[in-house]
C-alpha cells in the first residue's frame, strides 16, 4: 500500500480499480431498476406492520411491470405517499375501477385499520402511479 504512494502508475491503477467496483455496483442497481421498471427495485422493510410475513429489516425484490394482469386486491405493494419519500410495504385491500386511475386502498396485515390516516391530507386513495413495485419473492 505504502509502496504504491511512491509509484504513481500503480496508484492510478488502484484508483481506477476502486472506481470500477463502485460503478459496477451502480450499474447493477440501475440495470435492475430498468428490468423491474421500479425506481427502487430492492427495498428494506421499515415497520412491523406486515408481520409475521415480513419482519423489520427484510429485503424485498420488487417488480413494477403489469405484463399480464393489473395490480389487484391481495397483492403486496410498496408505495410512496404523495410528497414523501418513505417506501411503505402494505397489502392492497380494495380497488375501485380499472386502469391507471383505479382507486386503491392499502392496509398492513398486522395493523388494525387501513392506511387512510397514513396518506397525505386530501389523499383518500392511491393510484397505480403511487406504487413503486409489487413484492415478488419472500
Amino acid at each position, binding site marked *: 500500500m505504502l509502496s504504491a504512494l511512491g509509484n504513481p502508475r500503480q496508484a492510478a491503477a488502484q484508483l481506477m480499480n476502486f472506481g470500477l467496483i463502485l460503478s459496477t455496483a451502480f450499474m447493477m442497481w440501475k440495470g435492475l431498476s430498468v428490468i423491474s421498471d421500479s425506481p427502487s427495485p430492492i427495498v428494506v422493510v421499515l415497520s412491523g406492520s406486515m408481520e409475521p410475513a415480513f419482519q423489520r429489516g427484510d429485503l424485498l425484490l420488487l417488480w413494477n411491470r403489469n405484463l399480464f394482469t393489473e395490480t389487484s386486491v391481495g397483492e403486496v405493494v410498496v408505495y410512496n405517499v404523495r410528497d414523501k419519500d418513505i417506501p411503505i410495504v402494505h397489502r392492497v385491500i380494495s380497488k375501485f375501477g*380499472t386502469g391507471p386511475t383505479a382507486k386503491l386502498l392499502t392496509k398492513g396485515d398486522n395493523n388494525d385499520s387501513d392506511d387512510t390516516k397514513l396518506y397525505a391530507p386530501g389523499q383518500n386513495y392511491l393510484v397505480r402511479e403511487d406504487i413503486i413495485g409489487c413484492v415478488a419473492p419472500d
Partner: protein
Amino acid sequence: MYSSLVRLQNTFGFFTTVAFVVALLISASDFLSPRTPTVNVLKTTQLQTVKGRADYYSSKKEEYAIIKFTLDADLSSLFTWNTKQVFAYVTAEWPSAQNNNATNQAVIWDTIITAPSSDHLGNFSPSKLKRLRKSANGKGIDPSRGKLQLKNQRLKYPLTHPTGRLANTEDVQLKLHYNVQPWVGFLSWNQAQDWGKWKALKNGLSKKFTLPAIKVKEQAKKKTTKV
C-alpha cells in the same frame, strides 16, 4: 496465491453458492406437494345498507354495507414444511354501474394463519401465543389450522365506495382468496386454473346478491309521518 485471505474468499464464495442452490431446491419442493383447497360453504346470512361517516370528523355521509357471512373452507393442504403463513381473505366484488369493464373489489374480512414454525414472529398476545403453541402440540406443521369455520361473521373493515353510494348495488359476490407465504421462495395466490399438483380453488364464490336499500331512512320517515 494461497494466502489465508484468498482461502477465506473461496470458502465464502462456495458457501453462498451452496446456500443459493439449497434455497432454490426448497422453493422448488413446493411444486411437489399437492394443494387441494376446498370451500364447502360461502354464503351471506345478513345484508343491510346504512348511512354513516368514515370517522367522527368527516362531514361526508356515506353508505356502508353491513354483511354477515358464513364460511366453511379447508385450506389445510397449503401447510407444508416450507409454509411460513397463509393469509386468507374474503372480498366483496361487484361490477361498476357505468361500464362493465371496471370492477370494484374490497376485502371485508381477513386472517393471518401462521404455521407453528412462525408463531414467534407474529405480534400475538402472550396468551394467544401460548394457545397456539399448545394447539400445535410441538409439531412443526399443523394443517388443522387451515380449517376455516365462520358463522355469521361480521365485516372486519367498513365496506363503502368512493362515490359514497352503495345501496341497491347489484351482482355483489363474496370470494375467498388466499396468499401462501413460504419460508423460501415466491409468494403464491389462489389460482383460477390447475397447475400440476396445485388445484384451483373451487366453489370459492358466493351467490350473487343485491345490497338492499337504506332502511334507516325509511324508519326516520315513518317516525316523522307519525308525528
